[in-house]
């Protein structure tokens, strides 16, 4: 298929009544509403950049006093600040806790979300698929406070025997070593609750991508003698790969920033522990800020904002990484 070339731009074609129509400098011919619409769209695009810049500026400006303060000054004004600790060493465990909870949640949620999405898009009878898709979307509408309550009152007691069983039988595995929390208020429980919270977004995006698999490619696989699963593997999953990565990153973004549920469930601590079943080891940045902000003043507020800056940078880095992964194999993506 060829696309008709536009007329050579050197000579403008004569307009009505023999008048020569002048081309605009930009080469387009828009006027009236078309032009206004372009301004609106450009403005909306610029607004996003402006908001992002404003947030970044706020974080840097208000976090700066904490970043430049000496450990002694910080220890004086920030509650529970250990002596002789730099800000980086203080924020480090928070960053670790945040990433740990979010990555664990993602590891749990991505396979399940993909499974649900595949079931809805390629296995379920049509009527069941519609209902199920609707239900999954509904999960996304539950406020995170409710998830926090549910995780604290229902899920933690339910998971406790599971964690105890793992602690007894699988403690050789480093992640399950240590003293299992008697209350279940560990990072493992938090990860499960976060996984449930990010499940809808991962499922919804994956489902949309899987549904867009060209019929042509599915039939190509089937005509070669593929079973349904082989068809999914050869045609659907490769096509949806970048979409699933985007879905996972959206989920990761939500898990990184989740505040209420973590705050309500996790019993906090500031260590680099990998013992997921122990309580009092971890804290996430968002929950830390929400917890300490009401009573903070002076340099303590700047410290909180500096940790917020760390979260901002992490989220930005995660998204750029995702973009890079998606773009890496572009020529095989099916977009051309």
């Amino acid at each position: 298929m060829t696309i008709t070339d536009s007329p050579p731009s050197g000579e403008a074609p004569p307009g009505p009544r023999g008048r020569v129509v002048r081309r605009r400098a930009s080469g387009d011919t828009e006027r009236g509403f078309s032009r206004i619409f372009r301004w609106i769209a450009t403005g909306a695009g610029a607004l996003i950049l402006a908001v992002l810049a404003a947030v970044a500026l706020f974080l840097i400006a208000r976090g700066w006093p904490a970043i430049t303060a000496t450990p002694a000054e910080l220890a004086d004004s920030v509650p529970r600040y250990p002596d002789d600790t730099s800000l980086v060493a203080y924020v480090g465990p928070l960053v670790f806790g945040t990433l740990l909870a979010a990555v664990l949640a993602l590891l749990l949620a991505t396979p399940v979300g993909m499974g649900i999405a595949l079931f809805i898009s390629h296995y379920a009878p049509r009527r069941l698929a519609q209902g199920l898709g609707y239900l999954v979307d509904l999960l996304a509408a539950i406020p995170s406070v409710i998830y926090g309550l549910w995780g604290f009152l229902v899920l933690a007691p339910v998971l406790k025997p599971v964690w105890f069983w793992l602690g007894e039988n699988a403690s050789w595995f480093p992640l399950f070593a240590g003293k299992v929390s008697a209350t279940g208020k560990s990072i493992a429980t938090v990860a499960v609750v976060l996984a449930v919270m990010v499940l809808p977004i991962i499922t919804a995006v994956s489902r949309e991508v899987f549904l867009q698999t060209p019929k042509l490619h599915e039939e190509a696989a089937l005509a070669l003698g593929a079973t349904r699963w082989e068809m999914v593997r050869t045609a659907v999953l490769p096509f949806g790969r970048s979409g699933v990565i985007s879905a996972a990153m959206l989920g990761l973004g939500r898990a990184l920033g989740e505040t209420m549920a973590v705050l309500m469930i996790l019993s906090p601590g500031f260590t680099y522990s990998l013992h997921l079943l122990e309580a009092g080891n971890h804290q996430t940045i968002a929950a830390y800020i929400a917890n300490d902000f009401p009573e903070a003043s002076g340099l303590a507020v700047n410290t909180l904002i500096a940790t917020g800056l760390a979260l901002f940078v992490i989220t930005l880095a995660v998204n750029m990484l995702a973009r890079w992964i998606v773009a890496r194999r572009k020529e095989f993506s099916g977009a051309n």
Partner: protein
Amino acid sequence: MSKRIDAKDVNIYYGDFRAVESVSMTIEPRSVTAFIGPSGCGKTTFLRTLNRMHEVVPGAHVEGKVELEGVDLYGPDVDPVAVRRTIGMVFQRPNPFPTMSIRDNVLAGVKLNNRRISKSDADELVESSLRGANLWSEVKDRLDKPGSGLSGGQQQRLCIARTIAVRPEVVLMDEPCSALDPISTLAIEDLIQELKKDYTIVIVTHNMQQAARVSDRTAFFNIAGTGKPGKLIEMDDTATIFSSPREKDTEDYVSGRFG
């Protein structure tokens, strides 16, 4: 490597709607059989029942028998997946897997069918299949590049290579040239002439000159009107269909009076 197909009183339905009515025909091995007829006459639908691709559409089902060397493809213990491995299909629009290289595209079916294949066997199969599809000399230096980077005609030949790589008995082609330019069409038509030495070929085409050029036997399908089922009007040697058909409808169609 080539088998006969006998269709006996085949009726094809989409839900309650009967799309094709009572088709019986014999398709000879090592020959090219062309299906012609106006749009909506059921020729593609009938083609897709020959390898059970028809039932991929929800609600579609078939009555009657389609026998491959006497074995009913719609028998109770026949696995449609096995049928499709024996009877390959080339589609209207070239559809190489976009995420795979040219080499992986050729091997896609083989990897499904028997999983493990040594590197040297794979290399040999890739070369022989691409040679079989008249594509080898054009792509031999870029086997690791994506198949979607080829031209439309090359992509279609890649799809043919992928189909013959699993060594089917029959190759079905659903308007394989309708998305291609005349040069690529010619390349595919030449290829069909070579493929018929080894395979039973069935081709659906809108292009009557193409049917006349490539096929040994021609079947003419027609419908009485919209909403009516398609029927097989006449099937004969291609030369007879185009010179002295028995039915008036066939003569009107091949002489360009309608359709």
